[in-house]
């Protein structure tokens, strides 16, 4: 169980670092674009690059938010239930989240094989390279859900606050 906790923590930290790097990249690109605007200088393809970095960071962020339990949920009703029932619903919720992410991974196979063959302009690369973000991030979400379920059942997770409220 301890190894699982360490794995969970390590994966979360690594993914957060990747997200931060991607955020840093598109922040710098956008600021550079603004600075260059008075000089009427356009950098070819930067908007697409920013979009790819952003959607990758967002997809990974969706998985990290499961690990950090930061997704927005309405917990006011299950908070009223007895502890065991509350935990039961939390685990059921995680199983359903794992289920829909697994389904997205499965559906991505045909999607990547089909429309993924088209080219992503202006880079001229196959769209499948960008589409791959979806199954990768969803697989990570599935892993985090399973880890959370195991840790919760093993009594290693606090269940006082199931999901953090929106900031």
């Amino acid at each position, binding site marked *: 169980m301890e190894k699982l906790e360490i794995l969970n923590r390590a994966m979360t930290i690594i993914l957060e670092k990747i997200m931060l790097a991607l955020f840093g990249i598109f922040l710098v690109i956008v600021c550079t674009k603004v600075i260059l605007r008075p000089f009427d200088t356009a950098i070819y393809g930067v908007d697409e690059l920013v979009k790819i970095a952003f959607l990758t960071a967002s997809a990974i962020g969706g998985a990290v938010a499961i690990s950090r339990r930061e*997704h927005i949920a*309405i917990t006011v009703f299950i908070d009223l239930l007895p502890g065991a029932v509350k935990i039961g619903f939390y685990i059921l919720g995680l199983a359903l989240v794992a289920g829909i992410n697994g389904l997205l991974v499965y559906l991505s196979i045909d999607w990547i094989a089909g429309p993924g063959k088209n080219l992503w302009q202006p880079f001229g690369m196959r769209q499948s390279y960008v589409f791959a973000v979806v199954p990768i991030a969803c697989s990570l979400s599935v892993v985090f859900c399973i880890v959370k379920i195991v840790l919760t059942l093993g009594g290693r997770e606090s269940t006082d606050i199931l999901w953090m409220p*929106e900031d």
Partner: protein
Amino acid sequence: MLILLVSLAVLLLIGVPVAYALGLASVAYFMIEAPAAMGFVVQRFFAGINNYPLVSLPFFILMGLVMNSGGITRRLLDLSMFFGGRFKGGLGHVNVVASMIFGGISGSSASDTASIGAVLIPEMEKRGYPKEVAAGITVASSTMGMIIPPSVPMIIYAIAAEESIGQLFLGGIIPGIMVGLMQMMIVWYIARRNNFPTEDVPFTIATAWRETKRSAPVVIMPVMIVGSVVFGFVTPTETAGAAVFYGLVIGFFLVRLSVIKDLPNAMRQAIIMSAKIMMIIAFSQVFITVLALERVPNQIADFVEGLGLGPTTFILLTALLILISGTFIDVSPAILLMTPVLLPVAEKLGISGVHFGVVMISGLAVGACTPPVGNCLNVCAAISRLSIGRIFLGAAPFLLANVLVLILICIFPQLVLWIPNQVF
């Protein structure tokens, strides 16, 4: 259709995160009603996050977090003290004025509550204000963070409704100022009845000039943001990126290294916060596809037309629905859930999308201060160590201003649309 609504309601009630509840309900619909169209799920999901204007979202959130640092808040409070302190109930007015200015900088009510409340609630308590009143004013005045531009909920609405961010920003100005002025009137009335103190603030031209000059780099920020979005100097995404850069520069000059030291954590918070909203946006695209397949907005529009409701009655009823929903649902999911269902009906009745958006956000701002789900209440409870119920009781008289303004903007759309109509 029944499958969609029942499964969504059950999933939300059992605490499944809103994003995934939307996705699961849509998947349940596809499995039963249209299994052949299941491929849509992943395509619509991707379309939801593959949207360039959405890049502005983490930037605006980061800008708010950067501007939330102590030194910047202190300057805003000094400026607010200068303008509001000398009236009866001085610190109450300072709280409201600071929220009006801070709302234009942070774009978020929760960060407004945190930064202003941390300084002013203890200060007000020392000056003889009951703690509930101090916390109540802080929470109620923070609602202006959502209404006064720039506002993160407005950006989310603009993207969901495909409306102009610039027009929404301008539409929020008059209602935001009205809320502030009415809350100041309520502060004045309560202060007179309870004999709350006046602050000793000498008013001289030299002091006025000094305070304005000290705060000018911070105060001009919302003007620059709204100006550049509205007049199209740069795109909203570029504006947000530039605002972060500007925030970092002035933050560095005002609070030195702490702004740089706090940056990685602020960036982490901003990207996670935006990612969880992005997940809702992505799955709401799938949900909207189902609504469109089932022609739900058209059916509701036909139903409303059948009832013979005029636009004013409809928007007043919508405002009531928003107020009730806002007590249970957080702001972003509420916007993303209600906009695709209600906006087409409103538009069919001739209500402008900008007017509808400002009404929705003004209503949801009240929801952020009402139990059981009120972000500002949660933040304030952590700062003041008061129960949510007591804070709400303290905030209730001031929230009357919000409700009154909400009713007024429902009845008189020009209060929202006048400025956008002058500019666009």
